């Protein structure tokens, strides 16, 4: 429903997010902490970009700056050509956190409809949209239940449905599957891929799981800690559909290795896990890695 609006601004139309020279320092008691330094990143419309890195590398902070929940110390952020603050007020993005963050006194349907309700969508239109979203995440029969009656995975799906309520062209997700068990997690990833294909939304996805980043993304942004910097941007060469069979594909393992190596700063010695998962693919992934460093 917002699609038409977003088509309007001319020169940066193609880009969902443009981060230019962003620095972020936090003042703490023990002095300044450099959370982010010299971040430049562009996310194209409809592109799925994952931020990955060790804890403390500022990947969540970067997402929060894009969401206008934090302010950069220096540099600028544009979302669909507007300032981050304006984009927030215009509801250009939907957001989902590691915890579902549902309001416990609202039913599943009322939780999903919350952003619509807050922005004055009429009740009939709201009910129709909520029904559509719930069927998208497979929770139609749970519409009248309360969050405490759902499992963690179901709560998370409600939160994702809520983030999609206003058909945003940009989804910001901060480890949304972090608290889920492996099986639920894989199922949710598959669903997310399907939903993204349906909605054509760009996604900025924060995660600390390499396989997750590889499976979902068009590009994986590998970050390093203290100060938080973009170490490398690894494009995923996994053309075609993200299906379950991809998880057993050699290209998938090659990409995992590529990201892992980037995480370890190109140091093959950091490869305890490298050897375990895909031996022999190290060489194959090497040229890919160098291809698109920022």
């Amino acid at each position: 429903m917002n699609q038409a609006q977003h088509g309007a601004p001319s020169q940066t139309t193609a880009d969902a997010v443009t981060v230019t020279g962003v620095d972020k320092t936090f003042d703490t008691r023990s002095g300044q902490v450099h959370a982010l330094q010299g971040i430049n990143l562009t996310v194209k419309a409809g592109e799925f970009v994952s931020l990955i890195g060790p804890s403390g590398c500022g990947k969540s902070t970067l997402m929060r700056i894009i969401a206008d929940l934090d302010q950069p110390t220096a540099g600028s952020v544009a979302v669909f050509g507007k300032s981050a603050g304006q984009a927030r007020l215009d509801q250009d993005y939907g957001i989902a956190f590691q915890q579902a963050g549902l309001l416990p006194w609202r039913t599943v349907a009322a939780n999903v409809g919350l952003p619509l309700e807050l922005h004055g969508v009429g009740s009939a239109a709201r009910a129709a949209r909520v029904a559509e979203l719930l069927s998208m995440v497979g929770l139609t029969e749970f519409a009248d239940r309360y969050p405490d009656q759902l499992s963690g995975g179901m709560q998370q799906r409600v939160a994702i449905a809520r983030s999609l309520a206003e058909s945003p062209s940009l989804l910001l997700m901060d480890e949304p599957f972090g608290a889920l068990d492996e099986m639920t997690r894989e199922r949710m990833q598959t669903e997310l891929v399907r939903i993204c294909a349906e909605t054509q939304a760009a996604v900025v996805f924060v995660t600390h799981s390499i396989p997750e980043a590889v499976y979902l993304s068009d590009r994986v942004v590998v970050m390093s800690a203290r100060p938080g910097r973009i170490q490398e941007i690894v494009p995923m060469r996994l053309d075609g559909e993200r299906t379950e069979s991809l998880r057993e594909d050699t290209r998938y393992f090659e990409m995992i290795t590529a990201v892992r190596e980037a995480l370890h700063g190109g140091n093959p010695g950091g490869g305890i896990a490298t050897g375990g998962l895909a031996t022999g693919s190290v060489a194959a992934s090497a040229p890919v890695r160098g291809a698109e460093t920022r």
Partner: protein
Amino acid sequence: MTTGAETEGLRPGPEAGPPGLDTAAGGLLDQRSGVENPAGRGNPAGRGNPAGRVARNERIETKARQTPRGARELQVWAYGALGLAAIVIVWELYKLLAPADGVVIGGLRVLPRTTDLAMPHIWDMLARLFEPVTRAEGAAPLWAAVGAGALVTLGIAAVGWLVGLVVGVGLALVMLRWRLAEWGLLPWIILSQTVPLIAFAPIVRSWGSKIQIGGFEWADWMSVALIASYLAFFPIAIGALRGLQSPDVIHTELMRSYGIGWWRTLVKLRVPASVPYLLPALRLGAANAVIGAVVAEVSTGLQGGLGRILIQYAGQASGDPAKAWGPIFGAIVLGLVVAGSIALLGVFLKNYRRVEVNA
């Protein structure tokens, strides 16, 4: 008690508990979760998944709590009755066994006299309720006089509670909005409760009697209501502030991401989230309002309320010892009515008392 409930709750099927609305819901929940799991949706929780595990445990607990609901409620009442019976038995046993002059050690009476004057029989107290207040012709039974007094006190306490609610919530909002106000106000609010009420009451009355604005004249009952509100506002202010501050960062940030302002965040998020904190505060405030009203009636000498009757009948206790217990029972019933009203309010707001499982 809990063990019994759990074993019953784990028995499968909707027939596990006695029929009733909640039981039916519990049964439905059982069936649905049965459907949901084989479908692979319900998250095979409990395996390396903290959130899921919590959710599952919670659900099992809910079942355990819901299924034998009727039985549990019966148990609660049974324990209540047992407690009451225990008090009666202890009272009567002591009266029967202890010496009439009480127990005196070294010139100090450590246990009270057991004469009918000091400790009337329980049944005498109850019987007295149904006898006329005075020997005068056509006098109403004692319970009616006590009831009328209790109603007056209830009305005054209710006004005091409402004023306390408005003031308490107002203060909480001011403290929520401005951090500085919280630092500045909170110590004074706490200090306000250290002022001894009995010393305070006559002063309020004498202030009140001088107020006259146009057609409005300060009535004596208003002084009593003011003192009741003085006691009631404190727990409400503290509870409301805690409740309004209770939403998680994730929720406030979500509201920020929706681009709505402070007031709408208050209405949509903070006020509903405050209910679990507000309800106990309201109950405490209501109990305080009743105590404040009774004590203020006593110390300002207001006619018609329970406090006045209490003093009056206590003065007649040498001739009619059971009579003095009438207003005491009245005060107990009043307390129960007030607590019950708040509990009723809680029933209407029960959806706001749900807790989030894994946030």
